[in-house]
């Protein structure tokens, strides 16, 4: 044997031992080296000696080992690229078919197949498919998971994931000769050389596990078969609905039939005089703004139809309903504040913040020279001042001339608040200095 570096040599590895082993029971020769540089050198020597079924083992990848062992570059990147591009095409196709062909629906006017909007999902699909391919491809090409490996039956080899470095030549290499390999390793400076016997643990699956797997497989077939049967047969029974969510109810819907009633309809007409809950408005002064007489039309339920307002409003004083002149609500400071708030929201756009008919909408319409524009009334003008509060209330509710009614938007309480505020606005144009409280008058006097 050739001289080697001053490190231990296990007693088992004698020429005699290696020569005596029948070749079938050895799967290769394993040698340990002291560090990455030594392993690299050994790998080069092994490669130069012409062995091909070789491998090096280390706790971390060693730079330059690929060349030293003669490892060809893996095809993995190409596979990943192909799968990635397929994923790209697939993603685009999926979105096109699902959103533009099978169930086209418009989203805010965007084209059915909007490429800019479809890019993010496509990109993610590319990455997902490529990543899976890289991972699974790596495992597949490496032959992992590999549950059993004869190398691991060497106790020493377990150090490969810690700090040990090994070199291996397989017995089925064409140039293999146990003797020569051992000598080569010693020349390369191995600190330990041994042959690796074939694994003695059984490589066939135990019968019990095979049975268990078969049973599991059989059981696993049941659900798809059940689904297949369900999809290819008809049934009178209703579908399974795990979350019924009150989907199917036994009450009769509006348009359905019913044999309980002579006319066969499930829908029943209302009994005369029926009023919905909350719709019974006794207080005419509050809800209508006027007291209806016998020759007036029947008091309209809220909300009043708009066209009913026209004959009532267009008629001159002769035919006027009996408008109330007193507020049917308590007049308080907070009601006034609320009136101001609501007036500014609903009325000011047309009538202006001071109620003088100079709201922004009106100004704009005039600016655009709208031929059909009727300027809003100046609420502080004498005719409106003369109107009873009920009439103002009625105007808000039902509209007047070109103004439509706000019954739907403003509840009655708020409408009276607005009327109160309108009165305040009117007062503001027709008040005298004496009517103003002392402190506020002083402020006004000081203003220029």
């Amino acid at each position, binding site marked *: 044997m050739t001289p080697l570096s001053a490190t231990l040599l296990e007693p088992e590895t004698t020429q005699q031992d290696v020569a005596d082993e029948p070749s079938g029971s050895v799967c290769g020769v394993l040698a340990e080296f002291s560090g990455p*540089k030594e392993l690299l050198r050994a790998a080069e020597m092994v490669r130069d000696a012409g062995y091909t079924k070789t*491998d090096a083992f280390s706790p971390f990848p060693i730079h330059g080992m690929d060349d030293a062992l003669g490892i060809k570059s893996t095809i993995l990147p190409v596979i990943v690229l192909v799968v990635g591009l397929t994923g790209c095409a697939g993603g685009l196709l999926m979105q096109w078919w699902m959103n533009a062909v099978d169930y086209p629906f418009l989203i805010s006017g965007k084209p059915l197949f909007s490429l800019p909007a*479809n890019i993010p999902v496509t990109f993610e699909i590319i990455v997902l498919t*490529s*990543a899976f391919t890289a*991972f699974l491809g790596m495992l597949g090409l490496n032959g992992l*998971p590999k549950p059993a490996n004869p190398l691991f039956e060497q106790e020493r080899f377990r150090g490969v994931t810690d700090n040990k470095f090994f070199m291996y030549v397989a017995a089925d290499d064409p140039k293999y000769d146990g003797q020569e390999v051992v000598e080569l390793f010693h020349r390369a400076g191995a600190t330990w050389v041994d042959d690796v016997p074939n694994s003695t643990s059984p490589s066939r699956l135990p019968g019990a596990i095979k049975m268990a797997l078969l049973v599991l497989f059989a059981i696993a077939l049941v659900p798809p078969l059940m689904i297949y049967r369900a999809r290819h047969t008809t049934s009178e029974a209703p579908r399974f609905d795990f979350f019924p969510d009150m989907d199917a109810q036994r009450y009769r819907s509006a348009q359905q039939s019913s044999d309980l009633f002579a006319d066969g309809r499930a829908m029943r007409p209302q009994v005369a005089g029926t009023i919905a809950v909350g719709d019974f408005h006794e207080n005419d002064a509050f809800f209508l703004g006027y007291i209806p007489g016998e020759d007036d039309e029947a008091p309209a339920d809220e909300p009043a139809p708009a066209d009913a307002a026209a004959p009532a409003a267009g008629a001159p004083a002769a035919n006027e309903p009996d408008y109330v002149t007193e507020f049917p609500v308590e007049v308080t400071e907070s009601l006034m504040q609320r009136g101001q708030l609501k007036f500014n929201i609903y009325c000011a756009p047309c009538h202006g913040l001071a109620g003088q008919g100079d709201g922004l909408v009106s100004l704009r319409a005039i600016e655009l020279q709208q031929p059909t524009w009727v300027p809003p009334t100046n609420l502080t003008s004498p005719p409106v001042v003369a109107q009873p509060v009920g009439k103002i209330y009625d105007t808000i509710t039902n509209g007047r001339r070109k103004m439509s009614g706000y019954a739907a938007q403003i509840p009655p309480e708020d409408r009276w608040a607005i009327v109160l505020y309108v009165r305040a606005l009117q007062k503001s144009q027709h008040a005298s200095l004496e009517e103003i409280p002392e402190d506020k008058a002083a402020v006004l006097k000081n203003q220029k």
Partner: protein
Amino acid sequence: MATALAAPVDTTIEDPTRRPPLVTGDHDYQSITDTIHSISEHKTPRAWYIAFAVSSTATVTFFLLIGYLIYQGVGVWGNNNPVFWGWPIVNFVFWVGIGHAGTLISAILFLFRQNWRTSVNRFAEAMTIFAVVCAGIFPGIHVGRVWFAYWLAPYPATRLDMWPNFRSPLLWDVFAVSTYATVSLLFWYMGMIPDLATFRDRSKSKIKQFVYGVFALGWNGSARHWHRYEKAYMLLAALATPLVLSVHTVVSFDFAVAQLPGWHATIFPPYFVAGAVFSGFAMVITLMVPARKWFGLKDLVTLRHLENMCKVILATGSMVGFAYAIEFFIAWYGGNPYEGFAFINRAFGPYAWAYWTMVSCNVIAPQFFWIKKVRTTPWMMFIICIFVNIGMWFERFVITVTSLSRDFLPSSWAYFKPTPIDMAMFACSFGLFFTLFLLFCRYLPIVAMAEVKSVMPVPESEAKNDAQA
């Protein structure tokens, strides 16, 4: 055999003629393995049990709250007209953002050949996975009828008879976040395979050997396997890099494609990504500073590693500040009164308190990292990074809530108030995060041993052999 006898090397000294060692303290390969494996091999320290008890209590509370939410409905939250996106979305973006640091450390720093990443990447990737788990829960539960969440997937639905709307950023989110979770998991797991093999080979108990063995897939350190492994690692890194950019970009699209003032700014995509990396690195430091002390990792995660991370925080924090400045400028420059109002409102409106918290935590706090002393002192970094995370939560809050509470129509303005459920859920989501993290620390290799071994200075024993051979 680690010898702590050598004087600690100061790796933060700037010396252009030499690269500081990435591992200090005279380690060799075996001592690295010992250091990391002993964490899971030793008897579980009491502190771990206490911490685990606290975090798992919080986790259980979290799931109970979720049950309550599903039972009662989304009304238990503060979301209401007009602020329909409240804490849940803010929490989602917060957690997703934190996750980005892990992928950046793993993938982007790998592509830039920053070898110092090897000590922290496993830790950070784990943080990413757990942060994404927390993140994914919030959009899942906020839909109301959670049991129909599968409708978001493009499967042939007989009940619905229709497909998801691929033009919606919310659906892009579904794809982006699930892809991100999957790819991060793959990357993390693949990185762990060699280390799980180490654990398998070093474990004493049969059960541990079996479990680690199953997950190590039979890894044996073969150079041929390493070749394909490295290729796959590089491919995953190259894929994860645009992925991490795209995920937070898609999250930013949730806001930026809208027409809402304060939301619709074209700078959102890179701004959000920078912000995500910013908050993620802050969380890594927050976790790493105590971890390196308690797990004895000071030689592997040196002050230089921490300093590098602080520099990244400073850089990304400056990018965030830059984006604030540009947004502000454009709000004025564009001449859109609604946009201008939105920004004035942020700074001086009813949420000014949130805005100024955000500015002081995001813009001012990281500026302390200009000072070398601050970025090489662990307890200082720890405090600043907590502020950074607070600031980043507030940033998402400011963006989401202020723009919604004061949008175009004044008559719909309202002030959003969170409910106790909102706050409890957010707090308890940290419980879930820490529970998973504690489990990781206890049972899995928290440092990428194989990678560290490949970049550490050659151990003395090998160097001696070199000289002799």
